[in-house]
């Protein structure tokens, strides 16, 4: 699809028109709990109002934010490591964040803020190690970066499983973190991180045309004046930050970063000027819906949202691939 600003704005409007009802549905509708009617009639009720604004709203916004951040991370990562299977978790950052979140539980610090801080620190530490492993002669070597990520992921996962031995009451919290949960972050944390994530995505969008060029080959891109090495390094930092922030408030949620970019490429081709904003919205919507299903499917029992994303996404993705190949 040839890029036109008008087409971008038109499609953006359609995406937002779809997003609004999905957002409102996920915010207000939930079987067995506080129903739509109760919520609509009870804005004056302090308890209902508190459930709506302090529990549901941050959770739905977290879905949009985390899903969007993971999808954009996957999109950019597949490009910079030149591997269509790449997604944020392959760099080991999520494992680092998870270990960072579990560590305070082992040490007896059950405060949530310690877990958030630990998750972010763990993600950043892994990111730095993988980055320096990927450097070769001052340039990022795609293969080394990917292998370094897989190795660090395996190493930190081993630490996580070993740490289970030392977890008593914290084991349940740790498992919740590992299986993904959008209620991990408090409303103040969510509302602080949301603009930061949006800002990083805007910074990523600056490179959208350069990404199109890098897609045609790094040498070809550098020959037409694109600073490929610098863009790869900066993009890696952006992707790592997005993943770290997402894992901090949602735990491990796989699949969104892999499936959304591939689905959108079927409709929008290779052009990152379309793919970046629509990946954010698509990833966000997928996670909001997955979280609603996780809450509603076996109410009052809550399913892990990461399992729902894979359960919904994998068959859809396979069906799409089959349809394209016939």
């Amino acid at each position: 699809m040839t890029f036109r600003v008008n087409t971008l704005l038109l499609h953006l409007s359609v995406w937002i028109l779809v997003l609004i009802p999905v957002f409102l549905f996920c915010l207000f509708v939930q079987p067995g709990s506080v129903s739509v009617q109760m919520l609509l009639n009870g804005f004056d009720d302090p308890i209902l109002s508190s459930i709506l604004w302090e529990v549901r709203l941050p959770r739905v916004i977290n879905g949009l934010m985390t899903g969007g951040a993971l999808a954009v991370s996957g999109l950019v990562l597949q490009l910079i490591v030149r591997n269509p299977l790449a997604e944020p978790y392959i760099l080991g950052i999520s494992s680092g964040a998870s270990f960072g979140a579990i560590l305070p539980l082992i040490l007896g610090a059950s405060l949530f803020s310690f877990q958030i801080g630990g998750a972010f620190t763990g993600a950043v530490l892994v990111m730095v190690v993988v980055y320096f492993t990927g450097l070769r002669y001052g340039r990022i070597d795609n293969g080394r970066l990917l292998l370094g990520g897989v190795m660090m992921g395996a190493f930190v996962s081993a630490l996580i499983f070993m740490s289970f031995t030392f977890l008593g009451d914290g084991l349940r919290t740790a498992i919740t973190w590992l299986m993904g949960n959008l209620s991990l972050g408090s409303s103040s944390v969510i509302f602080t991180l949301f603009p930061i994530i949006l800002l990083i995505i805007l910074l990523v969008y600056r490179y959208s045309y350069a990404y199109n060029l890098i897609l045609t080959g790094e040498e070809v891109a550098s020959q037409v004046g694109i600073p490929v090495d610098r863009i790869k390094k900066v993009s890696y930092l952006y992707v790592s930050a997005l993943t770290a922030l997402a894992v901090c408030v949602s735990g491990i949620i796989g699949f969104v970063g892999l499936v959304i970019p591939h689905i959108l490429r079927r409709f929008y081709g290779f052009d990152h000027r379309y793919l970046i904003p629509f990946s954010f919205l698509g990833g966000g919507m997928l996670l909001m819906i997955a979280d609603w299903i996780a809450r509603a499917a076996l109410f009052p029992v809550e399913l892990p949202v990461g399992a729902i994303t894979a359960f919904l996404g994998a068959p859809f993705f396979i069906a799409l691939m089959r349809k394209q190949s016939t």
Partner: protein
Amino acid sequence: MSFRLNSVSFHYPGLKFHALDQVSFDFPAGSFISVVGANGSGKSTLLKLLCGILTPDSGSVFFDGREFSSISAGERAKNVAYVPQKQDLLFNMVVEELVSTGRTPYLSWMGLLSEHDQIQIDSAIKKADISHLKGKPIAQLSGGEQQRVWIARALAQQAGCIILDEPTAHLDLKHQIEIFRLLKDLQIQTGCTIITACHDLTLAASFSTHAVILRCGQLYKSGFASAVLTETAIREAFEIPVTIRQENDFIHVQVAASEFRTYSDPMTKP
């Protein structure tokens, strides 16, 4: 566009030997230059230095009298276009989309195409004779067609010089000739300088005006193709005896018959 290399040396980080060592030559604008040499002789490195992908450790590259290092990457891309040897598209693209990326040096950071850009893209597609393939995904094209698409992309760049790294690698005989005919037509009709690395010495000798022979990273010989691609020079540079035979405009470079052993293989007898 004329080229001059002044004692250019380059080595890849981590390797002790020079990929190119003190290479100097110059060529006039509008020439068709073939760069030949055995594997590992430095052909691809030379081409990457000529189009600005690599920067020399020492020495200077000049085009049209201007030193390469004094020109911005964007400005350089308006003068020199590059067709890589290994075309590694990560995801499938449509022909027109790929050709349009050749306009990058003329676009803003968001890469918005103007009407003039679209005219140049259509013209490049027409010149490369791929109008019928415009909307097709690259992966569905044959090797020869793909090579034409990349040449169209270089043409959309509107540069005075096109540098190609082994454009006929992996192509059958028919497509090899077609690609070289296309390049020759471009050189004659547009006055564009063509620089191509090539393993086929018959194609190099038949189509080029000038030639460069590299040997172990050093310049072995350069100048007019007829003076450079001689039996003696090829024998010494490639370490194999050849015979050269001219037929009309074509010059056939053949490995000497003495190099083929005679096997008494019963399977070859009818």
